[in-house]
């Protein structure tokens, strides 16, 4: 009779935990009882009882000790592992170098990009209460449904919320009121600075480290000013200037320096160099009256420090209610508030206007989260490629070590010994690579800093956390890539190892093939990404903007007389031989400051108001910038403040086709985010006539579409002139600049003469892209190099494996080319498969990125073809070295070997 079979797992369990010397007879007893029970009580019940019995056997007297299978004490072995690992590295110098090089490349890329990303992610983390500091954001919807989101709020919001809401511990407000001349009265040299006004709590909410002064009182008294070391150095040439006086060009009273701030660290969203105490203005009755009723304006940047356990959403709801209760809003306006955590200010401010600043103050520089993500991904991918490389090379090389593994097993090594040995080997390699990588990073860091415009130093600029994370990742990489090798190689049975039968197993080789495909897929994507970025950046810098940007000197108007006396200045400048044209404007095309916007409509053309940008300019503007006039005429020579030119986009929305004195109405204008009437009288409008239509030109960055634009006469009620644009000749530019300065200084001796070249200024729009392009280019190069190192190793291995085959083929008459083809074929196939995977990914990614630009290149087929040819070519070159070497070998030599 065939007896019932007991469940195997429970017997396996018994075998696993039971002391081996007890096992056989206990199992015998159990089975005897089992059989009897199965006959008496049925199989199910027998099974159940068997399980119960085995479970009751799981007790101290029976369970074997844990290390019963560790015949060799492991601490002695570890020394041996290190020695063997070291010897193996030295024995195969070529492979070891390839391994270490590949890993080093990967780690260098990873560390450099890691530094950059870490810095971007840790913006504004210097403040000890950074977690609880929030920026107040206003969301406004005007009656005609125009939504704006501004990082600003009213005076009373800051004043009231810290008193009314228990969850708000403190609040501070600041205002960047504009640029002004700061002078040391004892040594009057003008220094133009953006001036910030803030209340006394600014230094309490934030931890701006002070060199001198008291953070509790520094901004308390009227006429106090806090300046940074850097500004102190520029004005005084030293930093021990506390309690000294400074003079503002526009203020009667001198201000006293009450504290010196340390320079802002590079990862700070705050760039101010001087802070004037808000109390300076408290004596101004007009200011106080306005401030007391200022609930809903967007004139102040407000930061709130919440209690540690407070909920930001509920506080922002309370603020919204508070403002609605107190402010008198225009009917139809919707207003709500939200709180943005300080740590989001740098990367997550997309779509939030940086408010509460004069339009001549540059907005806070923003980080681009897309690039941060892109970089993080590439850094990890490169590390991944390097890890794969290691696994691939080591497994490929394993054939030469199979005998060693076999002997080890026979002598008594268990699997864990072998795994330990391979892991130690991979760690030795990782550590060497890491050391070399850190050295290389240290060497490269200065040029890298210059390039990304940051000030990293290897150890001081990032915390211990960064290095811990980097070390952790590298250990993880060692475990993963070394672990795969270790598990694979320790798996084989010793007998077959010693017979030399293994590594024919198909699965191993296909894993390796898959890894090569993955490596080259990543490389292909990166190459395509670099080409697309490169072409887009070149397109941005070289595309025809519709005006002439070359050899254009733009001089800022910084003193009153440079504005009022511009006719004289222009005339004097025109006299310089190298000057071709001079024009005065309120803004320049491609201005980095906020352009002024207006609401306008055609007179008698319905009630709907359109939005357009405004540049104020004189009659020489079109000639200086080479902007084409399509219809109508230029500004007349005599003062005619009511003439305007419009661009094609504006002509379209206004429905103007001729430019023959069509009248338009401009009731409102906005210098920042909110529109206000042009004239004091709310019902009055600026009513100019359109005298001409100009061809569209890119007055903003190419990310944006060309918007409607009005070119008003320089003497317009909306915005005064702010720049001289001087078109010069290419010869001897320095001398020309000197002469221009002489003219400006002759006009007003306090003139600081700030100038820049328009083309350089425009390039700054795309600086980030340029930077990314270069970084991505290097990373792509590194990834290709690493992948090729791997391929080189694999090719060497496969050529060695097939030496005999090649010998036979040569004897039978194969020529050099056919043998090269034989060896290269497999690898080229892999690279081609990788291209098939890489192309769609790259196509998708590139298109997504290009959508950011209103004007961009198309992703064309030849980019893919080029990337394909590059990768295949490089792979072929790598492989062919080995192929040629193998093919040139004398067959006698290889066949003789046995």
């Amino acid at each position, binding site marked *: 009779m065939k007896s019932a079979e007991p469940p195997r797992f429970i017997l396996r369990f018994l075998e696993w935990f039971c002391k081996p010397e*007890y096992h*056989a*007879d*206990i*199992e*015998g*007893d*159990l*089975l*005897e*009882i089992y059989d009897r029970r199965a006959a008496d009580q049925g199989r199910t019940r027998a099974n159940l009882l068997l399980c*119960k*019995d085995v*479970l*009751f*056997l*799981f*007790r*101290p*007297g*029976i369970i074997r000790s844990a290390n019963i299978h560790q015949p060799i004490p492991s601490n002695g072995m570890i020394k041996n592992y290190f020695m063997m690992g070291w010897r193996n590295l030295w024995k195969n110098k070529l492979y070891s170098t390839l391994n270490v090089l590949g890993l080093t490349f990967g780690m260098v890329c990873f560390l450099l990009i890691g530094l950059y990303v870490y810095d971007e992610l840790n913006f504004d983390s210097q403040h000890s209460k950074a977690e609880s500091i929030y920026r107040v954001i206003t969301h406004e919807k005007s009656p005609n449904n125009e939504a704006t989101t501004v990082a600003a709020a009213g005076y009373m919001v800051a004043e009231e919320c810290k008193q009314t809401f228990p969850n708000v511990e403190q609040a501070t407000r600041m205002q960047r009121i504009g640029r002004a001349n700061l002078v040391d009265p004892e040594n009057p040299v003008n220094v133009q600075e953006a001036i910030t006004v803030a209340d006394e709590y600014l230094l309490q909410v934030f931890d701006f480290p002070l060199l001198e002064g008291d953070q509790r009182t520094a901004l308390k008294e009227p006429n106090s000013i806090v300046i940074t070391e850097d500004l102190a150095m520029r004005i005084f040439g030293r930093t021990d200037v506390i309690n000294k006086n400074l003079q503002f060009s526009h203020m009667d009273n001198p201000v006293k320096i009450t504290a010196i701030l340390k320079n802002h660290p590079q990862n700070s969203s705050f760039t101010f160099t001087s802070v004037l105490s808000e109390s300076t203005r408290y004596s101004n009755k007009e200011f106080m009256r306005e401030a007391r009723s200022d609930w809903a304006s967007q004139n102040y940047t407000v930061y709130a420090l919440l209690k540690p356990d407070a909920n930001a959403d509920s506080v922002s709801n309370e603020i919204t209610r508070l403002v609605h209760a107190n402010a008198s809003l225009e009917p139809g306006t919707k207003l709500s508030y939200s709180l943005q955590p300080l740590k989001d200010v740098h990367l997550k401010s997309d779509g939030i206007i940086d408010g509460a600043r004069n339009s001549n103050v540059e907005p806070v520089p923003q980080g681009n989260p897309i690039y941060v993500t892109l970089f993080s991904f590439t850094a990890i991918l490169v590390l991944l490629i390097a890890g794969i490389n290691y696994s691939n090379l080591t497994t490929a090389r394993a054939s030469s070590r199979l005998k060693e593994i076999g002997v080890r097993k026979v002598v008594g090594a268990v699997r864990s010994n072998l795994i330990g040995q391979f892991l130690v080997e991979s760690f030795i390699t990782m550590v060497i690579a890491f050391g070399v990588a850190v050295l290389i990073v240290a060497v490269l860091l200065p040029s890298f800093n210059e390039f990304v415009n940051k000030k990293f130093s290897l150890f001081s600029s990032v915390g211990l956390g960064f290095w811990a994370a980097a070390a952790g990742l590298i250990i993880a990489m060692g475990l993963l890539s070394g672990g795969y090798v270790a598990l694979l190689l320790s798996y084989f049975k010793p007998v077959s190892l010693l017979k030399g039968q293994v590594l024919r197993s198909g699965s191993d080789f296909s894993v390796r093939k898959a890894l090569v495909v993955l490596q080259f897929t990543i490389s292909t994507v990166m190459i395509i990404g670099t080409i697309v970025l490169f072409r887009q950046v070149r397109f941005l810098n070289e595309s025809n903007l519709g005006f002439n940007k070359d050899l254009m000197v733009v001089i800022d108007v910084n003193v009153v007389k440079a504005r009022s006396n511009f006719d004289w200045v222009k005339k004097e400048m025109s006299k310089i031989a190298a000057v071709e044209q001079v024009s005065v404007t309120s803004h320049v095309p491609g201005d980095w400051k906020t352009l002024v916007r207006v609401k306008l409509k055609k007179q008698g053309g319905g009630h709907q108001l359109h939005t357009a940008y405004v540049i104020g300019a004189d009659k020489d503007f079109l000639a200086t910038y080479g902007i084409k006039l399509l219809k109508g005429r230029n500004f007349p020579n005599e003062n005619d403040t009511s003439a305007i030119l419009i661009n094609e986009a504006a002509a379209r929305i206004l429905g103007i086709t001729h430019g023959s004195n069509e009248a338009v109405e401009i009731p409102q204008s906005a210098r920042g985010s909110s529109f206000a009437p042009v004239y004091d009288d709310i019902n009055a409008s600026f009513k100019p006539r359109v005298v001409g239509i100009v061809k569209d030109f890119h007055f903003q960055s190419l990310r944006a579409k060309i918007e409607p634009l009005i070119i008003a006469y320089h003497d317009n009620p909306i915005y005064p002139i702010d720049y001289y644009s001087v078109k010069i000749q290419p010869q001897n530019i320095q001398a020309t600049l000197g002469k221009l300065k002489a003219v400006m200084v002759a006009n007003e001796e306090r003139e600081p003469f700030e100038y820049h070249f328009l083309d350089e200024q425009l390039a700054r729009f795309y600086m980030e892209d340029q930077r990314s392009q270069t970084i991505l280019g290097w990373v792509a190069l590194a990834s290709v190099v690493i992948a090729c190192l791997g391929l080189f190793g694999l090719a060497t291995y496969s050529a060695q494996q097939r030496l005999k085959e090649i010998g036979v083929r040569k004897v039978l008459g194969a020529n050099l080319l056919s043998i090269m083809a034989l060896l290269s074929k497999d690898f080229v196939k892999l690279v081609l498969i990788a291209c098939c995977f890489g192309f769609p990914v790259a196509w998708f990614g590139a298109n997504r990125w290009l959508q950011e630009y209103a004007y961009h290149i198309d992703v064309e087929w030849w980019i893919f073809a080029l990337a394909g040819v590059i990768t295949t070519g490089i792979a072929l070159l790598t492989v062919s070295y080995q192929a040629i070497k193998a093919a040139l070998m004398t067959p006698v030599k290889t066949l003789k070997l046995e």
Partner: protein
Amino acid sequence: MKRFQLGEFEEIVLLTVGVLHGNAYGVTIKDEIEQRLNREVTVGSLQVTLRRLESKGFLKSTPGDSNESRRGRPKLFFEVTAYGKKALDYCKESRDELWNALPQLVLNLK
């Protein structure tokens, strides 16, 4: 006189091994105790006790031949050593001594 530490279950197992003289292995010992004393014995507790008695030197074991009835697994036969016999004797004597010392009165209670 040397003192022997013998628990109740240990004593029973030791005695049973003696009773089964020559045919004492896991299953028979378990069956014997279950039949005679009408109590449930798990393989786990029995095995632990057997091994403990063996390590104390009260029992010794000899592996038997493997045969078909147990799917090729060998039996492990136990027998009581002289030392084990001594322990049993000591156990019985000490009990008897206590019994004898017990006043009649106590036994008549009920």
